[in-house]
């Protein structure tokens, strides 16, 4: 086998290895008892999926996946897991009462997907899909030419301008959905703050830790002695 053939088979090899890793770690997300372990395996799954995006020449989505999922959402999950002291929770049973039915439904969905795909509808190799996609990106950019004087740095690599093309599509063709999504994020942010806010009722004020109350007493005494 020549060097060219090996390099041509490289994406398939990477797909097989990374895909197996993704499936295995996703199963471990479900199987792990400790939520921290689940979260870390979820992180591994997200990183594997980002690699799969790169194989399908969606570099921008892969970058967003790493930034938003692996960076933002995972930190949020770990933060909440740490905030909730799960060791104090009773852990008699991990699985819910309907676990047998759940596994049955999951397997049924899996078989359904498999039978749909196994039909051979998409089994053929889409010939030179990567080249076509980059041509589409290129035509997109020539269709909506950006002002070169306003660009700080033009991408020198003409082969790979995925991020630029997706950005152009987002800000031109999908401007209204983009704005709606930004409004959605604002609503989600306000909702999270309002729901997560601790309401200080008089009952909770009474339950201020003892050492803070003692400290306040000491400070009061010191102030009085200073003024006297």
């Amino acid at each position: 086998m020549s060097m060219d053939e090996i390099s041509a088979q490289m994406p398939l090899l990477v797909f097989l290895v990374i895909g197996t890793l993704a499936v295995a770690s996703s199963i471990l997300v479900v199987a792990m008892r400790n939520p921290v372990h689940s979260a870390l395996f979820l992180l591994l799954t997200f990183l594997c999926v980002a690699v799969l995006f790169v194989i399908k020449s969606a570099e921008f989505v892969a970058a967003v996946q790493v930034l938003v999922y692996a960076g933002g959402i995972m930190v949020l999950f770990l933060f909440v897991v740490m905030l909730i002291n799960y060791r104090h929770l009773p852990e008699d049973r991990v699985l819910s009462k309907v676990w047998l039915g759940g596994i049955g439904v999951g397997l049924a969905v899996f078989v359904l997907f498999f039978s749909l795909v196994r039909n051979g509808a998409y089994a053929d190799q889409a010939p030179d899909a990567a080249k076509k996609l980059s041509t589409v990106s290129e035509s997109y950019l020539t269709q909506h030419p950006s002002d070169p004087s306003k660009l700080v740095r033009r991408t020198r690599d003409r082969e790979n301008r995925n991020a630029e093309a997706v950005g152009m599509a987002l800000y031109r063709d999908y401007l209204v959905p983009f704005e709606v999504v930004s409004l959605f994020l604002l609503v989600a942010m306000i909702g999270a703050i309002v729901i997560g806010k601790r309401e200080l009722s008089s009952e909770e004020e009474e339950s201020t830790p003892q050492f803070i109350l003692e400290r306040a007493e000491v400070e009061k005494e010191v102030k009085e002695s200073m003024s006297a």
Partner: protein
Amino acid sequence: MPSTAQYLMLSGTLFAVGLIGVIVRRNMITVLMCIELMLNAVNINLVAFSHRLADLQGQVFAVFVITVAAGEAAVGLAIIIQLYRMRSTVNVDEVKTLHG
């Protein structure tokens, strides 16, 4: 180059695993993680078809799905924290006031 069918099978597997997790697990945080897993499986489909059809729409939609997943995670975790403060539990089976 892996074919679209292989990508669809992978995403179907991830989706089924996430679905099993949502139904089977009792810990609410893990359930939320499994929902994220399912959304990610959908993203794999979108990107695979974007590549196959040579159309950027799929990637744009994947970006939107990621945004919605982020908002969903933020609100869901806030609800879980508030529930933990009120009930001292994150167990799905123990939160059944609406059960009737």
